[in-house]
């Protein structure tokens, strides 16, 4: 049996809080599906990845490029560390938008 330490428990609480925020206006079925997804993040619970748990694929994909980002000198909002405050949304040119539209539809 896995044991959750206080850090992992805090991470999980944070994730649950975010899930509750995003669940506004959802049907009961939708809220249950979010609860399942967050439950899958619980290190004390077997991963749902093999069962096709929603969100897990994206996590795995990001983990694949994580090392590349780790070694790059990427800057956040103020150049030091990422903060809570939202940055300005990205400006997307029509050219990029058209390119991505095609990629999403292909």
């Amino acid at each position, binding site marked *: 049996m896995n044991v959750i330490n*206080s*850090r992992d428990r*805090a*991470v999980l*609480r*944070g*994730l*649950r*809080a*975010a*899930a509750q*925020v*995003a669940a*506004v206006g959802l049907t009961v079925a*939708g809220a249950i*599906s*979010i609860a399942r*997804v*967050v439950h899958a*993040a619980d290190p004390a619970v077997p991963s749902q990845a093999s069962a096709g748990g929603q*969100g*897990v*694929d*994206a*996590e795995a*994909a*990001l983990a*694949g*490029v*994580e090392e*590349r*980002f780790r070694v*790059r000198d*990427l*800057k*956040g*909002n*103020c150049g*030091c*560390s*990422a*903060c*809570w*405050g*939202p*940055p*300005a*949304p*990205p*400006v*997307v*040119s*029509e050219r*990029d*938008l*058209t390119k*991505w*539209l095609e*990629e*999403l539809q292909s």
Partner: protein
Amino acid sequence: MSAPELDLQAFAEKHPLLERGARLATDELTEQELAAARRNWRERMASEYASARVFAGLVPLLMKAGVNHERVADVTSMIEEEIMHSRLCARVLVALGGSARAPLPPLEPVATGDPADPVEAVLRAVLSISCSSETVAVALVECERQRAANSVLRDVLSQILSDEVGHARFGWCLLDELGPSLSPAARARLSAYLVGCFAHQIRFHSPFLGLDRTSERGASFGAPDGEASWAIFVQTLSRVTIPGLERHGLRAERAFRCALRELERAA
């Protein structure tokens, strides 16, 4: 030209976090942990202050789209809340023995491109601000609140969390309200916008990867825990934001993969 400086020292001294300007007891922290905690609260002070302009930039977009006046009023409150968070961070910083002066981060204008449809412009902005950034912020602040060293810091984080919840929920509610009336073409363009939005989110949060993992003691005073923060970002994006946007009929999962390819190409 050098960055403008935010100076909240006098304010924080006039409105101390603890009675009679007492310092938070930090004897158990190492010098490095204390310095890291001060640095983090200082960066937050500047970042929260700069975020006020992000919400201010949302106001004309909402007006142009004819969104209900109550929603516009909600956003004007968010501007004040971000300034208030900045002041709270300054008060914590001074209670930790730090100086509440910091350069402001780059103040990019709030624009999302130039969609012809004003509703689409609003939704682009809230996809980035509320459904992505502020939803992650809720998870980050709640995580830190759970780890807080004492009731004073826990109260500060509770106050900030309560506002961040409102900022994030605002976007999800607006998406609920405006989403159903979107044409298939507008929905497709919003999905394409998500590619840029997710790439931007990954870039914005990637400094977490360069931060060391702090001790539980350091984290309890606000020293950054890069590993935990990155895990929160990744899990919130993949388990909350992406599925949430998919439920609203946006192709978020695909857009996310496309964003990763974009970042790889740019590397």
